[in-house]
């Protein structure tokens, strides 16, 4: 009993009738001064660190700031840039020569893509924004999903051009798969129907797409100017490889992760071997495999586009990583969630789709996005197999007589381009994590 006074004196029980009102904290406990004292100068070592850090930041900014801000934007070559600089600032001061960007930005962004067709990649990017909106944001209008479904074929048509019937004939393969899955399930049973839905379209793509598209083009020659893969370069190439890799590696990675958890011996072992082999070898080795070795394995006469081969390799590589990240999420899910789903009579795919994956993927968001960002930046490695990504083009530009000897400006520009996309992905993932937080664990 803490209330000994009243107890000894009066022996009456004490009951509070009125609650004390809340009071403001003392004046010294609010405001900017308090913030600085707490965060910057809380102790002598902390104060010293603050001062030293401020000096370092000043030193760096004082070096870079004038170099960047004083940069020269209008010149034909590095020599001209230097002449203008000497004229403006006198001899001995270094400033950036942004003129290389204004002169060559289109190559850094689009490679050798024909200049009068720039609208096509730009339109593709805009459509991409529309197509991913319903996937990324729940409150985007649902009918946009039609754009999402059509986007891969439209994008291919816009970027590479040629006959409209090529991508259309490929798209028919997917409709074929869907139709087989829906209509033959009752006749063949689910396993046979699934197999048929995989095998028949594959055969169709391998043997029928070419003739069918050619025949249709003969009937109705609709198309736009074709652009070869070797003309696609710069940041556009990085976006095509990175974007395709990101979009395809997520579903493949999820299937591999489920495969690795499966009780079915063959599926389990195949997934494990695939993941461990792909993950255990550097990406650059796989890229060389794609560019040099793959031709030996393909039937003679097939001319498989190098860019396509690289995209496949990058996708498989990222899938293996995604699989392991997702497996972490699956393992973090309590056993009870699986049992809860089972006890309600949900079958395997239903419980995966409705219960397990939504939670496991939520746990794995940071890892998945890290993998995506890594994949996107790793696309710069394709320069080693002869594709001209932004780094490749920076080399090409520096090899010209006008811009020989320029480094920083190009790399800063490329860096900013990558940073914009990577930073957006990172912010999106943080937003998504906050949104999906339902106050449990």
């Amino acid at each position, binding site marked *: 009993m803490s209330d000994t006074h009243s107890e000894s004196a009066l022996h009456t029980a004490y009951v509070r009738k009125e609650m004390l009102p809340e009071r403001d904290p003392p004046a010294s406990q609010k405001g900017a001064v308090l913030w600085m004292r707490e965060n910057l100068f809380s102790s002598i070592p902390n104060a010293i660190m603050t001062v030293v850090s401020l000096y370092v930041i000043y030193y760096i900014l004082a070096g870079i700031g004038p170099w960047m801000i004083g940069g020269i934007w209008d010149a034909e070559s590095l020599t001209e840039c230097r002449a203008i600089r000497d004229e403006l600032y006198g001899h001995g001061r270094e400033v950036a020569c942004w003129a290389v960007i204004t002169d060559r930005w289109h190559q850094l962004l689009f490679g050798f893509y024909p200049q009068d067709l720039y609208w096509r990649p730009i339109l593709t990017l805009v459509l991409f924004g529309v197509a991913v909106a319903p996937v990324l944001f729940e409150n985007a209008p649902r009918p946009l999903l039609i754009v999402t479904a059509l986007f891969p074929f439209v994008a291919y048509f816009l970027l590479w051009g040629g006959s409209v019937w090529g991508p259309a004939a490929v798209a028919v393969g997917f409709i074929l798969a869907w139709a087989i899955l829906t209509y033959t399930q009752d006749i063949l049973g689910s396993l046979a129907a699934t197999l048929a839905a995989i095998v028949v379209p594959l055969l169709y793509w391998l043997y029928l797409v070419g003739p069918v598209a050619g025949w249709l083009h003969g009937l109705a020659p609709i198309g736009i100017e074709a652009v070869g893969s070797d003309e696609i370069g710069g940041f556009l190439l990085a976006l095509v490889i990175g974007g395709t890799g990101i979009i395809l590696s997520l579903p493949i990675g999820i299937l591999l992760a489920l495969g690795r958890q499966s009780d079915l011996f063959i599926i389990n072992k195949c997934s494990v071997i695939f993941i461990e082999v792909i993950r255990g070898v550097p990406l650059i080795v796989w890229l060389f495999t794609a560019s040099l070795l793959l031709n030996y394995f393909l039937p003679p006469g097939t001319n498989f586009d190098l860019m396509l081969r690289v995209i496949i390799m990058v996708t498989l590589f990222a899938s293996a990583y995604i699989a392991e990240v997702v497996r972490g999420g699956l393992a973090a899910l*309590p056993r009870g*969630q699986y049992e809860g789903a089972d*006890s*309600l*009579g*949900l079958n395997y795919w*239903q419980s995966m789709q*409705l219960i397990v994956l939504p939670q496991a993927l939520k746990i794995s968001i940071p890892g998945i996005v890290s993998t995506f960002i890594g994949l996107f930046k790793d696309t710069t490695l394709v320069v080693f197999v002869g594709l001209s990504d932004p780094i490749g083009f920076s080399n090409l530009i520096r090899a010209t007589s006008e811009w020989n000897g320029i480094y920083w400006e190009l790399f800063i520009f490329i860096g900013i381009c990558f940073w914009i996309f990577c930073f957006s992905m990172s912010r999106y993932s943080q937003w998504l994590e906050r949104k999906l937080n339902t106050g*449990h664990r």
Partner: protein
Amino acid sequence: MTDTSTQEPAVKRTQMKVSDEVAIEITDMNKWFGTFHVLRDINLTVNQGERIVICGPSGSGKSTLIRCINALEEHQQGKIVVDGTELSNDLKNIDKIRSEVGMCFQHFNLFPHLTILENCTLAPIWVRKTPKREAEETAMYFLEKVKIPDQANKYPGQLSGGQQQRVAIARSLCMRPRIMLFDEPTSALDPEMIKEVLDTMIQLAEEGMTMLCVTHEMGFARQVANRVIFMDAGQIIEQNEPEEFFNNPQSDRTKLFLSQILGH
């Protein structure tokens, strides 16, 4: 665990109806975890409308037994027939039985990423192919029955343990099961919440639900059960009506167990 006093059932235990129809029949069932023999020669017949309480020391196999009934655990020998369907490796049979048999877990196992209402409508919509509106009406009916309709749009993480367990019961009921299994439904709850869950279960019993309940709530067993089963070391040691079971246990093992759980 000592007796937790709960509301007296409106219908006396002896008046609750038990039909002659067999709901579950287990014959010579054996199960091993690796080389460990968890369940030995289990024989048990449960009629429609029976309320059975299974008790026993921890590790005696009581949870495993009821988990075998809806194939959450696989038995290796013997036969389990639920509602006329035999449990085999056929996945179709298993899914059918699971949708007829409701189950409540010690840790509720609600789906934390779905709202209470979505938790309740999920299985009817996907397994029974009930239209969404109808499923929601059914869900609200059962949520009202367990007395938490106002929480329908919250997430499980925002509810207390007792409320979560009642949602779990409602979620099972939405599938209109003919049999309910309870695996220590009150063991993870604070004492003040045990009563609300037991009251819900008593109400279910009054309505004639076939129930198998692993629990240490002996008060509940006395009030509701028409049979108490005592298990030890993977075997059914003794089964009897509650009065006989508590007042006149036959085996020494049962006497020891009862003295330990009722003795203080």
